[in-house]
């Protein structure tokens, strides 16, 4: 049995994606943001991301990151999950802007002696790099709160209430509904491929078989799509007719609105 990069990645990705899609239990927890109406939560968290994007002051950004962490704790989001969500995109962002610590002009903080040259780390450079990383982390934190505390159906219902185009919502819903199936299809195809290969392949041969593999996967996807399309047509279409789920405005909604209003007013006053 021969295992190459494509095999390994299918196994890893399918397992992770399946676990990700199936383990969405946090939205069911009895927490603060879970009690907030999805429309209010979507609008409020996007407003907080906008406030964060337009903020440059390091202390204000740190306060916004603190707010994201506080909301996560109040919503009983597992600390490890939230920390992983925050750090995975933030660390590469930090690396991307890190050279600005020496590229920006300003008072020197430290000098790094390298074999070929010496680099001067400046105060404005460090302040920019820290503020940038904190801004990205806060934005990622607010988006993660939306995703971790809301069922995907709730997010779609919120978009529908906000009058997003019905076609866009249908496409997103269908794509999400079939993701798990396609990850499992990929796993099945990988298992079949792996169990029929016994000799190592050259890079050229590996690319050719991988191309056939992915081509076959796309054809299966296309054929399944045609079947689902015919079935949908036979049933009279896929137009979603959402049932009205009444969720009265409660204390959590008022509290969250107050938090968002406070952040917006604070940002305006800071300006």
């Amino acid at each position, binding site marked *: 049995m021969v295992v*190459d*990069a*494509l095999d390994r*990645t*299918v196994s890893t*990705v399918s397992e992770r*994606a399946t676990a990700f*899609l199936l383990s969405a239990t946090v939205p069911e927890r009895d927490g603060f943001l879970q009690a907030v109406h999805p429309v209010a939560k979507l609008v409020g968290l996007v407003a907080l*991301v*906008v406030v*964060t*994007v*337009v903020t440059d002051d390091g202390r204000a950004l740190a306060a916004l990151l603190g707010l994201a962490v506080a909301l996560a704790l109040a919503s009983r989001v597992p600390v490890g999950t939230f920390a992983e969500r925050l750090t995975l*995109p933030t660390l590469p*962002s930090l690396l991307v*802007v890190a050279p600005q610590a020496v590229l920006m002009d300003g008072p020197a903080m430290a000098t790094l002696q390298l074999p070929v040259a010496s680099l001067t780390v400046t105060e404005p450079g460090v302040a920019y790099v820290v503020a*940038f990383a904190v*801004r*990205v982390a806060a*934005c*990622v934190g607010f*988006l*993660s709160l939306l995703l971790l505390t809301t069922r995907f159906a709730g997010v779609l219902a919120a978009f529908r209430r906000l009058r997003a*185009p019905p*076609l*866009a919502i*249908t*496409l*997103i819903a*269908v*794509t999400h*509904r*079939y*993701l798990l*199936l*396609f*990850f499992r299809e*990929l796993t099945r195809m990988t298992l079949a491929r792996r169990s029929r290969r016994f000799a190592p392949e050259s890079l050229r041969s*590996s*690319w*050719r078989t991988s*191309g*056939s593999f*992915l*081509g*076959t*996967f*796309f*054809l299966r996807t*296309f054929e*399944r*799509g*045609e079947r*689902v*399309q015919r079935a*949908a*047509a036979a049933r009279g*279409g*896929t*137009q979603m007719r959402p049932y009205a789920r009444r969720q009265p405005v409660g204390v959590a909604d008022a509290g969250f609105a107050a938090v968002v209003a406070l952040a917006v007013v604070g940002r305006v006053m800071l300006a």
Partner: protein
Amino acid sequence: MHILDGFLDLAVAAVCALASAAVLAYAARRVDGELSDARAPLLGLVAAGIFAAQMLDWPIVGGTSAHFVGGAFAAILLGPHLGALCVATVVTVQALVFGDGGVVVLGANVFNMAIVEVYVGYAIYRALAGHHEIAAAFTAGWLGITAGALSAAVQLGLSSAFAYELGTVVLIMGAGHLALGLIEGAITAVVYRAVVDARPDVLPASPLREVKA
């Protein structure tokens, strides 16, 4: 190539969102006859397939790997307008389910990956397919992703939040993706070849294939 919230100025993100909304609305209107309520599942399922395929690593020399983006392939398979709607769906689901890319910059990510990459890739494929189909698919994948990266570089370079100069960002991202795009082009070509060999009928008609048949 997913841009995160915090990288772009709000004004740049807003302009990109408006441009994306306008182009996608145009695309939806152009395929109005094709994209009926009952045809939406086909597009949604192809989007799910592209989403899954994007997560696969392809072996490169020295134990390294790269992954497929598939914007040009979606354009070739579905046509530019359906391809743009399909990849826009993929990018949106990536943001709303997995948190890949931001929410305020969603319009910018859709613009780069679902509009620039798809339409540029399709235009190149159409221009070259009459000469050599596989080479056309390769070039479409290669230059399509490079164009998408250049678009992202311009957005980043114009944003004061991202402190690098416009020329520097365009040079680094353009050169990087011009090299990395060769892999995208090669994957697009081998997948295209596999689909043409197995089910040529799912792809748009080509004069070269008709002659061979």
